[in-house]
């Protein structure tokens, strides 16, 4: 089995598989599955509404950045570097924002999918980039801040290196699997 069909099989099975296991296991443990489902599902509305300010702020900013021609200028500057890993210049703002702010990066990802279509290569790259790492700065601030650690030693370096690895892999893997 080659890598493509393996990745494809995982993709097809993960969600139905998780739902199947979750419901079987919960029923076996005598959890009232539907009541519990409804209890959790109530949060869905609030969670989506809470995203609106992030989405409006970032989608407007990226929209302006692209329509004004600023994106084109920026990508012309970085094209030599981007070409090495085959990253489309439109992903540059996402790559910069990803370690800094999760909700903002999510909004940029949304904008890219909305503009180029979620099934385009660049849309899938953005989705993979978004899902491949967490927001390094947020995690560091919250976790170290919670216990009053001031000297964080090498944690930031490792976090950013991991982010870079995730982003580059996302671009390369999407190229192999989706084109």
């Amino acid at each position: 089995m080659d890598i493509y069909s393996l990745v494809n099989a995982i993709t097809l099975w993960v969600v139905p598989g998780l739902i199947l296991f979750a419901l079987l296991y919960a029923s076996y443990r005598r959890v009232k599955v539907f009541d519990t489902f409804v209890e959790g599902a109530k949060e869905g509305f609030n969670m989506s509404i809470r995203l609106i300010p992030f989405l409006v702020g970032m989608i407007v900013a990226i929209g302006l950045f692209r329509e004004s021609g600023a994106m084109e200028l920026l990508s012309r500057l970085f094209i030599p570097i981007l070409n090495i890993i085959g990253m489309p210049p439109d992903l540059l703002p996402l790559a910069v924002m990803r370690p800094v702010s999760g909700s903002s990066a999510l909004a940029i990802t949304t904008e890219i999918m909305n503009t180029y279509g979620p099934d385009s290569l660049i849309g899938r790259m953005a989705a993979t980039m978004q899902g491949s790492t967490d927001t390094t700065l947020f995690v560091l601030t919250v976790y170290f801040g919670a216990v009053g650690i001031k000297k964080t030693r090498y944690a930031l370096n490792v976090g950013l290196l991991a982010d870079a690895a995730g982003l580059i892999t996302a671009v390369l893997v999407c190229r192999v699997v989706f084109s």
Partner: protein
Amino acid sequence: MVNLLWAGMIVSAIIIAGINGNIGTVTQTIFSSAEKAVGIAFSLISIMTFWLGIMKVIEKSGFINVVIFFLKPLAYWLFPGVPRNHQAMNAMLMNMSANLLGMGNAATPFGIKAMDELQKLNPHPDTATDDMCTFLAINTASLTLIPTTIIAIRTATGAQNPTDIIGTTIVATLCSTMTAVFCDRIYRRYNLWKNNSRNL
């Protein structure tokens, strides 16, 4: 940082639009983009509602204990400085399992609890220990099986098969997590941080 990036994007866009002579597009783009944003948020409601329901079932059933069972050997190897039955180990296992299942909201409280417990093992309360750095490294790389929010957004923007990025995401997140663990080990072994300590 976010503030700077956000303002930078808008300010440079307006200036460049002015130089290029298409300042008219600015107002137009603001209105159309804002409308798009709200539309997407509304189409998110449907799929988010379903997922959060399923997540609650997973949470209540204690399914997380199954995941913890498989993660234990890995956690013992990753955190040699933490006693196996210590509260810190338990909290870190809960945190890692919640992340793996895509329950980001549940993972954060466990993570903070873990830091609290790790702090009790810390001889210098203002400086991070090796195990804290490792724990942070794992968390920033966030090994996730199912990127719930991305799938929801792909659904909202009309993807034909919203889940088809799961495979590529798992590969990418594995790479970032392995990089985090690898770099962490290098730093630990050679104590590279000594000339490189930073204040957050």
